[in-house]
Protein backbone atom coordinates (compact mmCIF):
# COMPACT_ATOMS: atom_id res chain seq x y z
CA UNK A 1 0.00 0.00 0.00
CA UNK A 2 2.84 2.34 0.88
CA UNK A 3 4.48 1.55 -2.41
CA UNK A 4 1.28 2.47 -4.21
CA UNK A 5 0.94 5.82 -2.44
CA UNK A 6 4.54 6.52 -3.22
CA UNK A 7 4.09 5.60 -6.86
CA UNK A 8 0.92 7.67 -7.18
CA UNK A 9 2.34 10.78 -5.55
CA UNK A 10 5.55 10.43 -7.46
CA UNK A 11 3.98 10.07 -10.86
CA UNK A 12 1.58 12.97 -10.30
CA UNK A 13 4.41 15.23 -9.27
CA UNK A 14 6.64 14.06 -12.05
CA UNK A 15 4.00 14.39 -14.75
CA UNK A 16 2.33 17.67 -13.79
CA UNK A 17 4.87 19.72 -12.00
CA UNK A 18 8.19 18.23 -12.92
CA UNK A 19 9.17 18.36 -9.27
CA UNK A 20 11.65 16.01 -7.67
CA UNK A 21 10.04 14.18 -4.79
CA UNK A 22 12.48 11.51 -3.73
CA UNK A 23 16.22 11.48 -3.29
CA UNK A 24 18.14 8.65 -4.92
CA UNK A 25 18.27 5.58 -2.71
CA UNK A 26 21.76 4.22 -3.14
CA UNK A 27 22.71 2.43 0.03
CA UNK A 28 21.79 -0.85 1.63
CA UNK A 29 19.76 0.87 4.34
CA UNK A 30 18.09 3.54 2.18
CA UNK A 31 15.03 1.55 1.21
CA UNK A 32 14.38 0.33 4.75
CA UNK A 33 14.55 3.91 6.05
CA UNK A 34 12.21 4.94 3.24
CA UNK A 35 9.75 2.25 4.36
CA UNK A 36 9.47 3.92 7.77
CA UNK A 37 9.23 7.29 6.04
CA UNK A 38 6.35 6.16 3.85
CA UNK A 39 4.58 4.49 6.74
CA UNK A 40 4.79 7.78 8.63
CA UNK A 41 3.66 9.70 5.55
CA UNK A 42 0.71 7.35 5.25
CA UNK A 43 -0.22 7.92 8.89
CA UNK A 44 0.16 11.68 8.49
CA UNK A 45 -2.01 11.76 5.39
CA UNK A 46 -4.61 9.47 6.94
CA UNK A 47 -5.01 11.48 10.14
CA UNK A 48 -4.83 14.87 8.42
CA UNK A 49 -7.51 13.84 5.93
CA UNK A 50 -9.57 12.35 8.76
CA UNK A 51 -9.42 15.51 10.87
CA UNK A 52 -9.96 17.82 7.89
CA UNK A 53 -12.97 15.92 6.64
CA UNK A 54 -14.59 15.65 10.07
CA UNK A 55 -14.10 19.39 10.56
CA UNK A 56 -15.58 20.19 7.15
CA UNK A 57 -18.49 17.85 7.74
CA UNK A 58 -19.27 19.39 11.14
CA UNK A 59 -18.78 22.89 9.79
CA UNK A 60 -21.49 22.34 7.22
CA UNK A 61 -23.81 20.08 9.17
CA UNK A 62 -23.76 22.15 12.36
CA UNK A 63 -23.51 25.62 10.88
CA UNK A 64 -25.38 28.23 12.87
CA UNK A 65 -29.06 28.41 12.12
CA UNK A 66 -31.53 30.76 13.70
CA UNK A 67 -33.55 29.25 16.53
CA UNK A 68 -31.05 26.46 17.16
CA UNK A 69 -31.22 25.18 20.72
CA UNK A 70 -28.28 24.25 22.84
CA UNK A 71 -27.45 20.55 23.13
CA UNK A 72 -26.06 20.00 26.58
CA UNK A 73 -25.37 16.28 26.57
CA UNK A 74 -22.36 16.05 24.25
CA UNK A 75 -19.41 17.23 26.23
CA UNK A 76 -17.73 14.19 27.61
CA UNK A 77 -17.21 10.53 26.81
CA UNK A 78 -14.70 8.41 28.63
CA UNK A 79 -14.87 5.80 25.91
CA UNK A 80 -13.87 8.28 23.21
CA UNK A 81 -11.16 9.86 25.36
CA UNK A 82 -9.60 6.51 26.12
CA UNK A 83 -9.77 5.32 22.55
CA UNK A 84 -8.11 8.41 21.15
CA UNK A 85 -5.44 8.18 23.79
CA UNK A 86 -4.75 4.48 23.44
CA UNK A 87 -4.95 4.06 19.66
CA UNK A 88 -2.38 6.79 18.86
CA UNK A 89 -0.19 5.39 21.64
CA UNK A 90 -0.26 1.95 20.06
CA UNK A 91 0.56 3.41 16.66
CA UNK A 92 3.48 5.28 18.23
CA UNK A 93 4.73 2.11 19.89
CA UNK A 94 4.71 0.28 16.56
CA UNK A 95 6.64 3.06 14.80
CA UNK A 96 9.05 3.41 17.70
CA UNK A 97 9.89 -0.30 17.77
CA UNK A 98 10.25 -0.59 14.03
CA UNK A 99 12.26 2.58 13.58
CA UNK A 100 14.49 1.99 16.61
CA UNK A 101 15.26 -1.59 15.65
CA UNK A 102 16.41 -0.31 12.29
CA UNK A 103 18.45 2.43 13.93
CA UNK A 104 20.16 0.06 16.36
CA UNK A 105 20.94 -2.34 13.55
CA UNK A 106 22.44 0.47 11.47
CA UNK A 107 24.39 2.01 14.31
CA UNK A 108 26.99 -0.73 14.53
CA UNK A 109 29.49 -0.90 11.67
CA UNK A 110 30.09 -4.42 10.31
CA UNK A 111 33.44 -5.92 11.33
CA UNK A 112 34.80 -6.25 7.82
CA UNK A 113 34.23 -2.63 6.85
CA UNK A 114 36.85 -0.81 4.82
CA UNK A 115 37.92 2.21 6.82
CA UNK A 116 38.23 5.75 5.50
CA UNK A 117 39.11 8.82 7.53
CA UNK A 118 37.32 12.15 7.29
CA UNK A 119 38.47 15.47 8.67
CA UNK A 120 36.08 18.40 8.55
CA UNK A 121 37.57 21.84 8.36
CA UNK A 122 36.09 25.27 7.65
CA UNK A 123 34.95 24.81 4.81
CA UNK A 124 36.05 21.59 3.20
CA UNK A 125 36.12 17.88 3.67
CA UNK A 126 39.49 16.13 3.81
CA UNK A 127 39.23 12.47 2.98
CA UNK A 128 42.08 10.12 3.70
CA UNK A 129 42.16 6.56 2.40
CA UNK A 130 44.27 4.03 4.33
CA UNK A 131 45.92 3.06 1.04
CA UNK A 132 47.30 6.55 0.71
CA UNK A 133 45.17 8.64 -1.64
CA UNK A 134 43.79 11.88 -0.24
CA UNK A 135 40.82 13.77 -1.57
CA UNK A 136 39.13 17.06 -0.92
CA UNK A 137 35.34 17.34 -1.09
CA UNK A 138 35.18 13.99 -2.83
CA UNK A 139 35.03 10.42 -1.70
CA UNK A 140 35.49 7.46 -4.01
CA UNK A 141 34.11 4.18 -2.76
CA UNK A 142 33.54 0.77 -4.33
CA UNK A 143 29.98 -0.43 -4.75
CA UNK A 144 28.73 -3.26 -2.55
CA UNK A 145 31.41 -2.93 0.08
CA UNK A 146 30.96 -1.87 3.69
CA UNK A 147 32.66 1.46 4.27
CA UNK A 148 33.27 2.81 7.73
CA UNK A 149 34.10 6.50 8.11
CA UNK A 150 36.00 7.66 11.17
CA UNK A 151 35.49 11.40 11.42
CA UNK A 152 36.76 14.34 13.35
CA UNK A 153 36.89 18.09 12.94
CA UNK A 154 39.79 20.47 13.09
CA UNK A 155 37.71 23.45 14.22
CA UNK A 156 33.94 23.68 14.72
CA UNK A 157 31.18 21.09 14.58
CA UNK A 158 30.35 19.90 11.07
CA UNK A 159 27.87 17.30 9.88
CA UNK A 160 28.63 14.57 7.34
CA UNK A 161 25.47 13.97 5.36
CA UNK A 162 24.87 11.86 2.28
CA UNK A 163 21.14 12.03 1.51
CA UNK A 164 21.30 9.21 -1.02
CA UNK A 165 22.64 6.88 1.67
CA UNK A 166 20.29 8.21 4.43
CA UNK A 167 23.27 8.59 6.73
CA UNK A 168 24.33 11.59 8.75
CA UNK A 169 26.49 12.22 11.79
CA UNK A 170 27.93 15.28 13.43
CA UNK A 171 31.68 15.67 13.06
CA UNK A 172 33.01 16.94 16.36
CA UNK A 173 36.30 18.58 17.24
CA UNK A 174 38.21 16.59 19.82
CA UNK A 175 36.27 13.38 19.29
CA UNK A 176 35.93 10.62 16.77
CA UNK A 177 32.49 9.79 15.51
CA UNK A 178 31.80 7.19 12.88
CA UNK A 179 29.21 6.10 10.37
CA UNK A 180 29.11 3.27 7.91
CA UNK A 181 27.28 2.50 4.70
CA UNK A 182 27.20 0.08 1.86
CA UNK A 183 26.55 1.79 -1.44
CA UNK A 184 24.56 -0.44 -3.74
CA UNK A 185 24.31 1.67 -6.86
CA UNK A 186 27.07 3.07 -8.99
CA UNK A 187 26.68 6.82 -9.34
CA UNK A 188 27.55 10.25 -8.05
CA UNK A 189 25.82 11.55 -4.95
CA UNK A 190 25.74 14.74 -2.92
CA UNK A 191 27.79 15.17 0.20
CA UNK A 192 26.54 18.00 2.42
CA UNK A 193 27.66 19.62 5.64
CA UNK A 194 24.54 19.42 7.78
CA UNK A 195 25.66 21.32 10.86
CA UNK A 196 25.98 25.09 10.49
CA UNK A 197 29.70 25.87 10.58
CA UNK A 198 30.12 29.50 9.54
CA UNK A 199 30.32 31.76 6.52
CA UNK A 200 30.74 29.23 3.73
CA UNK A 201 28.73 26.45 5.31
CA UNK A 202 26.69 26.04 2.15
CA UNK A 203 29.84 25.56 0.10
CA UNK A 204 31.14 22.77 2.29
CA UNK A 205 29.69 20.26 -0.10
CA UNK A 206 31.16 17.55 -2.25
CA UNK A 207 30.49 14.38 -4.14
CA UNK A 208 30.49 10.72 -3.28
CA UNK A 209 31.60 8.65 -6.28
CA UNK A 210 30.35 5.10 -6.06
CA UNK A 211 32.36 3.02 -8.53
CA UNK A 212 32.29 -0.56 -9.70
CA UNK A 213 34.89 -2.74 -8.02
CA UNK A 214 37.15 -2.75 -11.09
CA UNK A 215 36.87 1.00 -11.63
CA UNK A 216 37.65 1.52 -7.99
CA UNK A 217 40.73 -0.69 -8.17
CA UNK A 218 41.89 1.31 -11.19
CA UNK A 219 41.25 4.61 -9.40
CA UNK A 220 43.18 3.36 -6.39
CA UNK A 221 46.07 2.23 -8.57
CA UNK A 222 46.24 5.68 -10.13
CA UNK A 223 46.84 7.14 -6.69
CA UNK A 224 49.18 4.32 -5.69
CA UNK A 225 52.21 6.56 -6.16
CA UNK A 226 51.56 8.04 -2.77
CA UNK A 227 52.39 6.13 0.35
CA UNK A 228 49.77 4.42 2.46
CA UNK A 229 48.53 6.10 5.58
CA UNK A 230 50.38 3.60 7.75
CA UNK A 231 53.64 4.26 5.93
CA UNK A 232 53.25 7.98 6.41
CA UNK A 233 52.54 7.23 10.06
CA UNK A 234 55.68 5.13 10.37
CA UNK A 235 57.82 8.02 9.12
CA UNK A 236 56.14 10.44 11.46
CA UNK A 237 56.63 7.96 14.28
CA UNK A 238 60.36 8.06 13.76
CA UNK A 239 60.51 11.78 13.10
CA UNK A 240 58.72 12.65 16.34
CA UNK A 241 61.00 10.28 18.24
CA UNK A 242 58.17 8.05 19.38
CA UNK A 243 60.32 5.00 18.74
CA UNK A 244 62.76 5.91 21.49
CA UNK A 245 60.19 4.81 24.06
CA UNK A 246 57.71 2.77 22.02
CA UNK A 247 60.15 1.23 19.51
CA UNK A 248 60.67 -2.41 18.71
CA UNK A 249 63.24 -2.72 21.50
CA UNK A 250 60.81 -1.42 24.06
CA UNK A 251 62.43 0.27 27.02
CA UNK A 252 60.88 0.52 30.44
CA UNK A 253 59.72 4.04 29.64
CA UNK A 254 56.75 3.07 27.48
CA UNK A 255 54.84 0.03 26.26
CA UNK A 256 55.62 -1.54 22.92
CA UNK A 257 52.85 -0.80 20.50
CA UNK A 258 53.05 -3.99 18.49
CA UNK A 259 49.76 -5.85 18.53
CA UNK A 260 48.29 -3.40 21.00
CA UNK A 261 45.39 -2.21 18.82
CA UNK A 262 41.98 -3.60 19.71
CA UNK A 263 43.27 -5.25 22.90
CA UNK A 264 42.22 -4.34 26.45
CA UNK A 265 44.80 -2.48 28.52
CA UNK A 266 45.02 -2.26 32.26
CA UNK A 267 45.05 1.40 33.35
CA UNK A 268 46.84 2.84 36.37
CA UNK A 269 43.54 3.57 38.12
CA UNK A 270 42.58 -0.11 37.92
CA UNK A 271 40.09 0.19 35.05
CA UNK A 272 40.45 -1.55 31.72
CA UNK A 273 40.16 0.17 28.35
CA UNK A 274 40.26 -1.22 24.86
CA UNK A 275 42.82 0.46 22.63
CA UNK A 276 40.82 2.05 19.81
CA UNK A 277 41.07 5.17 17.70
CA UNK A 278 39.85 7.48 20.46
CA UNK A 279 42.23 5.89 22.96
CA UNK A 280 45.24 6.44 20.70
CA UNK A 281 44.17 9.97 19.87
CA UNK A 282 44.00 10.77 23.57
CA UNK A 283 47.35 9.07 24.16
CA UNK A 284 49.01 11.34 21.61
CA UNK A 285 47.29 14.62 22.45
CA UNK A 286 46.51 14.37 26.18
CA UNK A 287 48.72 11.51 27.46
CA UNK A 288 47.99 12.42 31.07
CA UNK A 289 44.45 11.15 30.65
CA UNK A 290 45.51 7.65 29.56
CA UNK A 291 47.91 6.32 32.14
CA UNK A 292 48.67 2.65 31.42
CA UNK A 293 49.46 0.56 34.49
CA UNK A 294 53.10 -0.34 35.01
CA UNK A 295 54.63 2.65 33.22
CA UNK A 296 55.65 6.05 34.55
CA UNK A 297 53.52 8.97 33.40
CA UNK A 298 56.25 10.77 31.51
CA UNK A 299 54.98 11.00 27.97
CA UNK A 300 54.84 14.60 26.75
CA UNK A 301 51.81 15.90 24.93
CA UNK A 302 51.90 16.31 21.17
CA UNK A 303 49.10 18.84 21.07
CA UNK A 304 50.16 21.56 18.68
CA UNK A 305 52.88 19.45 17.11
CA UNK A 306 50.61 17.17 15.15
CA UNK A 307 47.36 18.02 13.39
CA UNK A 308 44.32 15.77 13.07
CA UNK A 309 45.61 14.40 9.78
CA UNK A 310 48.88 13.31 11.38
CA UNK A 311 47.12 11.77 14.36
CA UNK A 312 45.24 9.63 11.90
CA UNK A 313 48.53 8.61 10.27
CA UNK A 314 49.94 7.58 13.63
CA UNK A 315 46.81 5.60 14.44
CA UNK A 316 46.99 3.85 11.08
CA UNK A 317 50.61 2.97 11.79
CA UNK A 318 49.83 1.52 15.24
CA UNK A 319 47.00 -0.41 13.70
CA UNK A 320 49.31 -1.81 11.04
CA UNK A 321 51.69 -2.99 13.76
CA UNK A 322 48.89 -5.06 15.18
CA UNK A 323 48.11 -6.56 11.83
CA UNK A 324 51.77 -7.43 11.25
CA UNK A 325 52.02 -9.20 14.55
CA UNK A 326 48.90 -11.19 13.92
CA UNK A 327 50.16 -12.22 10.50
CA UNK A 328 53.47 -13.23 12.03
CA UNK A 329 51.75 -15.22 14.70
CA UNK A 330 49.71 -17.27 12.26
Amino acid sequence: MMGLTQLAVHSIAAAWLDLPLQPPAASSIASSVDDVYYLLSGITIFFSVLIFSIIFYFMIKYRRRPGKTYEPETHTSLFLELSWTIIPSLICVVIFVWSSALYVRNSRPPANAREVFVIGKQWMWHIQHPEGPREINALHVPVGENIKLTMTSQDVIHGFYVPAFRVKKDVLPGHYTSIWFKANQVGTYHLFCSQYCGTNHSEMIGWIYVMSTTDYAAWLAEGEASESLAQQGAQLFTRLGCDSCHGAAASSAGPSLAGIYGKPQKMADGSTRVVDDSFLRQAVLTPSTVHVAGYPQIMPTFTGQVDEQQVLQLIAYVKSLGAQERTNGQ
Partner: protein
Amino acid sequence: MVHGENPTGFAHQFETLEQQHDAGRLGMWIFLATEILFFGGMFMSYTVYRSLHPQAFLLGSHILEVKFGAINTAVLICSSFTMAMSIRSAQTGKKKGTIIGWLILTMLLGATFLFLKFRFEWYHDYLEHTMPGFGFFYRPEWGTHAPQVQMFMCFYFFMTGLHALHMIVGIGVLLVLTWMASRGRFTSQYFAPLEISGLYWHFVDIVWIFLFPLLYLIRY
Protein backbone atom coordinates in the same frame (compact mmCIF):
# COMPACT_ATOMS: atom_id res chain seq x y z
CA MET B 1 -8.97 54.26 42.11
CA VAL B 2 -5.28 54.79 41.57
CA HIS B 3 -2.83 51.92 41.64
CA GLY B 4 -0.46 51.91 44.53
CA GLU B 5 -0.07 50.97 48.14
CA ASN B 6 -1.60 52.63 51.13
CA PRO B 7 0.49 53.08 54.27
CA THR B 8 -0.35 49.69 55.81
CA GLY B 9 1.30 47.93 52.91
CA PHE B 10 -1.98 46.62 51.53
CA ALA B 11 -2.09 46.57 47.74
CA HIS B 12 -5.34 47.34 45.93
CA GLN B 13 -5.48 44.21 43.79
CA PHE B 14 -5.97 41.91 46.77
CA GLU B 15 -9.16 41.26 48.69
CA THR B 16 -7.53 40.65 52.06
CA LEU B 17 -4.15 41.22 53.67
CA GLU B 18 -3.83 37.49 54.18
CA GLN B 19 -4.30 36.85 50.48
CA GLN B 20 -1.53 39.35 49.84
CA HIS B 21 0.85 37.55 52.23
CA ASP B 22 0.08 34.18 50.72
CA ALA B 23 0.75 35.59 47.27
CA GLY B 24 4.05 37.06 48.39
CA ARG B 25 5.21 33.86 50.01
CA LEU B 26 4.21 31.72 47.03
CA GLY B 27 5.94 34.18 44.73
CA MET B 28 9.17 33.85 46.67
CA TRP B 29 9.03 30.05 46.66
CA ILE B 30 8.54 30.08 42.91
CA PHE B 31 11.42 32.51 42.56
CA LEU B 32 13.57 30.16 44.62
CA ALA B 33 12.57 27.27 42.34
CA THR B 34 13.84 29.39 39.48
CA GLU B 35 17.07 30.01 41.36
CA ILE B 36 17.53 26.30 42.02
CA LEU B 37 17.30 25.63 38.31
CA PHE B 38 19.68 28.51 37.66
CA PHE B 39 22.35 27.21 40.02
CA GLY B 40 21.36 23.67 39.04
CA GLY B 41 22.48 24.28 35.47
CA MET B 42 25.87 25.31 36.80
CA PHE B 43 26.15 22.44 39.24
CA MET B 44 25.34 20.08 36.42
CA SER B 45 28.07 21.37 34.12
CA TYR B 46 30.45 21.32 37.07
CA THR B 47 29.57 17.67 37.75
CA VAL B 48 30.01 16.66 34.13
CA TYR B 49 33.44 18.26 33.88
CA ARG B 50 34.61 17.05 37.25
CA SER B 51 33.81 13.48 36.25
CA LEU B 52 35.62 14.04 32.95
CA HIS B 53 38.71 15.62 34.55
CA PRO B 54 38.90 14.50 38.18
CA GLN B 55 42.68 14.97 38.37
CA ALA B 56 42.57 18.55 37.10
CA PHE B 57 39.77 19.54 39.43
CA LEU B 58 41.75 18.10 42.33
CA LEU B 59 44.78 20.17 41.32
CA GLY B 60 42.56 23.21 40.94
CA SER B 61 41.09 22.90 44.41
CA HIS B 62 44.61 23.12 45.82
CA ILE B 63 44.74 26.71 44.62
CA LEU B 64 41.88 27.59 46.94
CA GLU B 65 42.41 28.34 50.63
CA VAL B 66 40.21 26.10 52.74
CA LYS B 67 40.82 28.42 55.71
CA PHE B 68 38.86 31.28 54.17
CA GLY B 69 36.17 29.01 52.83
CA ALA B 70 35.62 27.55 56.28
CA ILE B 71 35.54 30.93 58.02
CA ASN B 72 33.07 32.19 55.45
CA THR B 73 30.87 29.16 55.94
CA ALA B 74 30.73 29.90 59.65
CA VAL B 75 30.01 33.57 58.95
CA LEU B 76 27.10 32.72 56.70
CA ILE B 77 25.60 30.21 59.11
CA CYS B 78 25.71 32.90 61.80
CA SER B 79 24.04 35.35 59.43
CA SER B 80 21.21 32.88 58.85
CA PHE B 81 20.75 32.73 62.59
CA THR B 82 20.62 36.51 62.97
CA MET B 83 18.21 36.74 60.02
CA ALA B 84 15.92 34.22 61.68
CA MET B 85 16.17 36.19 64.93
CA SER B 86 15.06 39.39 63.23
CA ILE B 87 11.91 37.62 61.99
CA ARG B 88 11.39 36.06 65.38
CA SER B 89 11.64 39.39 67.15
CA ALA B 90 9.08 40.92 64.80
CA GLN B 91 6.78 37.96 65.27
CA THR B 92 6.95 38.14 69.07
CA GLY B 93 6.30 41.88 68.92
CA LYS B 94 9.73 43.08 70.13
CA LYS B 95 10.68 46.75 69.89
CA LYS B 96 11.71 48.00 66.46
CA GLY B 97 15.24 48.57 67.79
CA THR B 98 15.65 44.83 68.33
CA ILE B 99 14.53 44.03 64.79
CA ILE B 100 16.87 46.66 63.37
CA GLY B 101 19.72 45.36 65.50
CA TRP B 102 19.39 41.81 64.17
CA LEU B 103 19.07 43.11 60.61
CA ILE B 104 22.20 45.21 60.91
CA LEU B 105 24.09 42.27 62.38
CA THR B 106 22.96 40.14 59.43
CA MET B 107 24.18 42.76 56.98
CA LEU B 108 27.51 43.04 58.77
CA LEU B 109 28.01 39.29 58.57
CA GLY B 110 27.12 39.35 54.89
CA ALA B 111 29.59 42.19 54.32
CA THR B 112 32.26 40.27 56.22
CA PHE B 113 31.74 37.33 53.92
CA LEU B 114 32.13 39.52 50.84
CA PHE B 115 35.15 41.31 52.26
CA LEU B 116 36.96 38.05 52.99
CA LYS B 117 36.00 36.70 49.60
CA PHE B 118 37.16 39.71 47.60
CA ARG B 119 40.16 40.80 49.62
CA PHE B 120 41.77 37.50 50.60
CA GLU B 121 40.60 35.15 47.90
CA TRP B 122 39.76 36.88 44.63
CA TYR B 123 42.37 39.61 44.88
CA HIS B 124 44.94 37.04 45.91
CA ASP B 125 44.01 34.90 42.89
CA TYR B 126 44.40 37.91 40.68
CA LEU B 127 47.91 38.57 42.01
CA GLU B 128 48.82 34.88 41.71
CA HIS B 129 47.60 34.77 38.08
CA THR B 130 45.01 32.15 38.83
CA MET B 131 42.10 34.26 37.60
CA PRO B 132 41.00 33.03 34.16
CA GLY B 133 40.79 35.77 31.60
CA PHE B 134 43.06 38.07 33.65
CA GLY B 135 46.52 36.75 32.92
CA PHE B 136 46.04 33.14 33.91
CA PHE B 137 49.40 31.35 34.05
CA TYR B 138 49.78 27.63 33.53
CA ARG B 139 51.89 26.30 36.38
CA PRO B 140 54.42 23.63 35.47
CA GLU B 141 53.24 21.26 38.21
CA TRP B 142 49.88 20.97 36.48
CA GLY B 143 51.48 19.43 33.40
CA THR B 144 49.00 18.60 30.69
CA HIS B 145 46.10 19.23 33.06
CA ALA B 146 46.64 22.98 32.92
CA PRO B 147 43.72 23.83 30.58
CA GLN B 148 41.32 21.87 32.75
CA VAL B 149 42.71 23.49 35.91
CA GLN B 150 41.84 26.77 34.27
CA MET B 151 38.38 25.42 33.59
CA PHE B 152 38.04 24.54 37.26
CA MET B 153 38.98 28.09 38.17
CA CYS B 154 36.41 29.34 35.65
CA PHE B 155 33.74 27.40 37.46
CA TYR B 156 35.07 28.62 40.79
CA PHE B 157 34.80 32.27 39.79
CA PHE B 158 31.56 31.81 37.95
CA MET B 159 29.82 30.03 40.81
CA THR B 160 31.21 32.07 43.68
CA GLY B 161 30.75 35.23 41.61
CA LEU B 162 27.08 34.58 41.06
CA HIS B 163 26.75 33.65 44.71
CA ALA B 164 28.43 36.91 45.71
CA LEU B 165 26.06 38.78 43.40
CA HIS B 166 23.14 37.19 45.22
CA MET B 167 24.71 38.24 48.53
CA ILE B 168 24.97 41.83 47.34
CA VAL B 169 21.33 41.81 46.25
CA GLY B 170 20.46 40.29 49.63
CA ILE B 171 22.23 43.06 51.50
CA GLY B 172 20.35 45.60 49.39
CA VAL B 173 17.06 43.94 50.36
CA LEU B 174 18.11 44.01 54.03
CA LEU B 175 18.81 47.73 53.75
CA VAL B 176 15.27 48.31 52.54
CA LEU B 177 13.95 46.12 55.38
CA THR B 178 15.96 48.10 57.91
CA TRP B 179 14.46 51.32 56.57
CA MET B 180 10.97 49.81 56.76
CA ALA B 181 11.64 48.63 60.32
CA SER B 182 12.86 52.07 61.33
CA ARG B 183 9.53 53.47 60.10
CA GLY B 184 7.81 51.02 62.44
CA ARG B 185 6.19 49.09 59.60
CA PHE B 186 6.55 45.67 61.18
CA THR B 187 4.26 44.41 63.87
CA SER B 188 3.53 40.96 65.24
CA GLN B 189 0.63 40.94 62.73
CA TYR B 190 2.53 42.20 59.72
CA PHE B 191 6.05 40.99 59.05
CA ALA B 192 5.61 39.26 55.68
CA PRO B 193 8.42 41.21 53.93
CA LEU B 194 10.86 40.06 56.62
CA GLU B 195 9.74 36.49 56.30
CA ILE B 196 9.88 36.47 52.51
CA SER B 197 13.31 38.10 52.39
CA GLY B 198 14.45 35.62 55.04
CA LEU B 199 13.60 32.78 52.65
CA TYR B 200 15.85 34.34 50.07
CA TRP B 201 18.71 34.92 52.51
CA HIS B 202 18.59 31.31 53.73
CA PHE B 203 18.54 30.08 50.17
CA VAL B 204 21.70 32.01 49.33
CA ASP B 205 23.35 30.49 52.42
CA ILE B 206 22.35 27.00 51.36
CA VAL B 207 23.89 27.55 47.94
CA TRP B 208 27.17 28.33 49.68
CA ILE B 209 26.83 25.20 51.83
CA PHE B 210 26.89 23.27 48.55
CA LEU B 211 29.62 25.36 46.94
CA PHE B 212 32.07 25.04 49.82
CA PRO B 213 32.59 21.24 49.69
CA LEU B 214 32.29 21.10 45.90
CA LEU B 215 35.05 23.64 45.36
CA TYR B 216 37.27 23.65 48.44
CA LEU B 217 37.02 20.17 49.92
CA ILE B 218 37.71 17.98 46.87
CA ARG B 219 41.15 17.16 48.16
CA TYR B 220 40.00 15.58 51.40
